[in-house]
Each structure stands twice: as C-alpha cells, then as structure tokens.
C-alpha cells in the first residue's frame, strides 16, 4: 500500500501542479497537440472521403486504409520523421496526422456509401444537385459513422501524442519518459493514469457530442455500424501504440 500512498502524494504535491513541467501545463500541451493533429487530419481526410464516398470512387483504398493504418508502427513513424525533419514539432505533428487520417477516411467513406440507394435516387429525383445531395442527404445520414471516425481518430491521437515526449517535447508523455529514466515510479504511474484519463475523457466527451449531433432516428439504426467503425479505427489506436 505504500506505493499507492506515494502515488497519491505525487498527485497531491503542489509542486507538481505548478511551473512549466507541472500537470496543468503538460496536460494543456497534450491537448494542444491532440486537437491540432485531429483538426488537421479532419481537414485533409473529410473532403477526400466525402468526395470518394459521394462519387463511389476509390472504394478499395478507402475501405482498407483503416486496416493499413492499424498496421503502421507509430514509434517507427515518429522516429523516421525526426530523422528526416529534425528536432521540431513538425515531425511529431506529421506522424500524428498521418495516423489520424485513416479512421476518418474509412468511416466517412463507408458512412456515405451506406446511404440507401433509394434515398439518394429520391433526392436526385427531387431535383437536388450533387452538392445538395451530399450536404443535405448523405452527410446527415452518414453522421453517426463520420462522428465515430472522428472520435476514434481523436482518441488515437491523444494516445499517440504521448510519443511527442519521446522526442523531448511536452505533453503528458513527459511524465512517462522522465519517470522511466529516473525510475521514479510515482511520476511514471501518475503520468500513465493522466494519459489514460485524458483518453477516456476524450472518448466520452466526443460520444456525447455524437449523441447531440446525430438525429435520434439514425442513431439507433446505426448503432452497430458505429461500433464497427470504432473497432476498425480503434485498432489503429492500439496499433499506433497509443
């Protein structure tokens, strides 16, 4: 039990809550990396996936890219990026964005493709332009899966952002790597718990956002699909070593 009490001591030590290496700053850094990477990934992935889904092109790639993303070792990616681009936040960002894109692409693509042919035809029959079909029919119907993809991606990024600290940057990973090197198990465990907590909070927060954003009727029908999406992308989370 002394380890637990020491761990508690770490969490309650005021020194750990102030300064540039305190918990709040590290958490904020971590959130910054994560939000930036997820947004950038979404900005890149969504248009592409929406286009592919709407036109039905590139299906093979779109569907399998989540699988491929799952197989990519995040540690290797980040180290490679460092070797190529040097010691700044860019390689970290590139690695995070690269790993965040696949779940968004696959889930969005599948979501759009899943829109019933009849619904699409009906919309077309009503005289809607392609763009209108996309924005007024396909996207709303695909919302559960799109959101699931974004959510998966975000959780993945939060996890992988831990590796920024491997390259000496900030974020909650700092507690892990410093704690490891110093054999300071309280710091190590404290950091791990914080990262786990942040991951879970991200997951739950975005799940709530999803319930708000997705129309109720769709939500039920798409529940299984959403879980599928979580799994297909999640493997990416796990495989990205986050």
């Amino acid at each position: 039990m002394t380890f637990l009490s020491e761990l508690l001591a770490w969490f309650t030590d005021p020194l750990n809550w102030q300064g540039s290496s305190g918990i709040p700053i590290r958490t904020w850094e971590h959130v910054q990396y994560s939000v930036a990477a997820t947004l950038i990934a979404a900005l890149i992935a969504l248009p592409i996936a929406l286009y592919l889904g709407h036109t039905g092109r590139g299906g093979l790639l779109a569907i399998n890219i989540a699988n491929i993303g799952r197989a990519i070792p995040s540690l290797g990616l980040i180290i490679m990026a460092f070797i190529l681009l040097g010691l700044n936040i860019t390689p970290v960002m590139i690695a995070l964005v690269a790993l965040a894109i696949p779940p968004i692409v696959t889930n969005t693509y599948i979501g759009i493709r899943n829109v019933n042919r009849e619904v699409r035809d009906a919309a077309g029959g009503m005289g809607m332009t392609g763009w209108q079909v996309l924005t007024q029919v396909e996207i709303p119907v695909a919302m559960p899966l799109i959101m699931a993809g974004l959510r998966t991606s975000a959780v993945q990024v939060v996890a992988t952002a831990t590796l920024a600290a491997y390259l000496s940057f900030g974020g909650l990973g700092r507690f892990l790597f410093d704690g490891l090197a110093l054999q300071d198990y309280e710091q190590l465990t404290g950091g791990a718990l914080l990262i786990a907590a942040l991951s879970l909070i991200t997951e739950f927060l975005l799940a709530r956002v999803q319930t708000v954003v997705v129309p109720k009727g769709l939500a039920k029908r798409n529940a299984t699909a959403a879980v599928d999406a979580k799994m297909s992308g999640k493997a990416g989370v796990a495989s990205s070593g986050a």
Partner: protein
Amino acid sequence: MDWGWVQDHLDEIQSLFFQHAQFTLLALVYGFAIAFPLALAATRWPRLYTPILGLTGILFTIPSIALFMLMMPFTGPTATTCLIALTIYTLLVLVRNTVEGLKGVPREVREAAEAMGYRRFKQLFRVELPIALPVIIAGIRIAVVTTIGLVTITALIGFGGLGALFIDGFRQAFGTPIIVGFALSVLFAVAADLALVGAQRLLTPWARGGGSR
C-alpha cells in the same frame, strides 16, 4: 538505405522477428483463452454483455504506452508486462466478434440442432461455431494486426521485436534499421492478415458466397 547493413544484420533481424512473432502469438492465444469463455458467458447471460464490453472497451481505450507503464511498478520492464498488456488489448475485439458471431447464428439453425438432439456443447462446437467462424476470424484479424503494431511499442521498455530496430536507428541517426523495422512489421501484419483470410476460406468453404459481416 544501406543494403550492406541489412546483409550484415540478417541474424539480428531474424531473431527480432521471432521475438515479435512470439509476442504476437502468445498474446493472441492468451487473449482468446480469456475472451472465448467471456464471450460464451455473454451469449448465455446477455446481461453480462454490456459490462464485459464496457470493461474491455475501457481497457482498450487506455493508450498502450500508458498501460505498459502502469504495470511497470508491479511487474517491471519484463516480458510478462508486455504480454499482459498485449493480451488485454486483444480482448475487446475478440469478445465482441465472438459474441456477434455466435449471435448471428440463425434461430432456425439452433432450433433444428436442438430438435436433432444435439446437446449444448455439441451444438456449440458442431453447429454454432462453424457458422460464427467468419466473424470470429474477422475479429482475430483485427487483433493480430493491432498486436503486431503494439509489439513495436514495447521497444520502449527493452523489447520491441522489430521495433528494436527503430531504437537502433534512432541512436545512430541512421535511417536503414528504421526503414527495415518499419517495412518488416507492416509486411508481417499484412501477411498475417492474408493468412487468416486464407484460413477462413479453408475452414468455411460454404461462406465464400455470402462473405462476413
């Protein structure tokens, strides 16, 4: 890309690959050993499904680096730590897919089997599992590919399989080992995935038309 280096290090690469494969295989076997009974329980007593899925889901959401580190104070930087964490990560997908697979067995088929006098155990193994196989294997595929990726993270605590090559390359600021490690782990994942698809085809020749869910 220094091919000379590759030639000189074939032994090391091979033994790292074996370490990688060992970890993956063990994690899957242990994972399935835990997940299968859990899935059976969840099918038998549906109320258990949500909590089981919930727990394995939460564990899954925990970033792998964090999970490895969380175990460090208790089991140290050992192979055991790696294996326990790797096994935990397989649970969600294995449980989920096994349950979904079993649930997907049409009621008529189950009833027919019962009518034919099949007892529970026989029914499970002779009838339900073969039908559920495609979905179960789909889950195994995800678990395998995920695990292969995760093994590389264990490089941070002294293992890593092919991931150890990343650390070597990092230390010497030398790209070749990193590229080799990267390419081989991706290839390994792809090969394992394809092998499982092949196994599925072999084991369920009747399902070829329908395909899995």
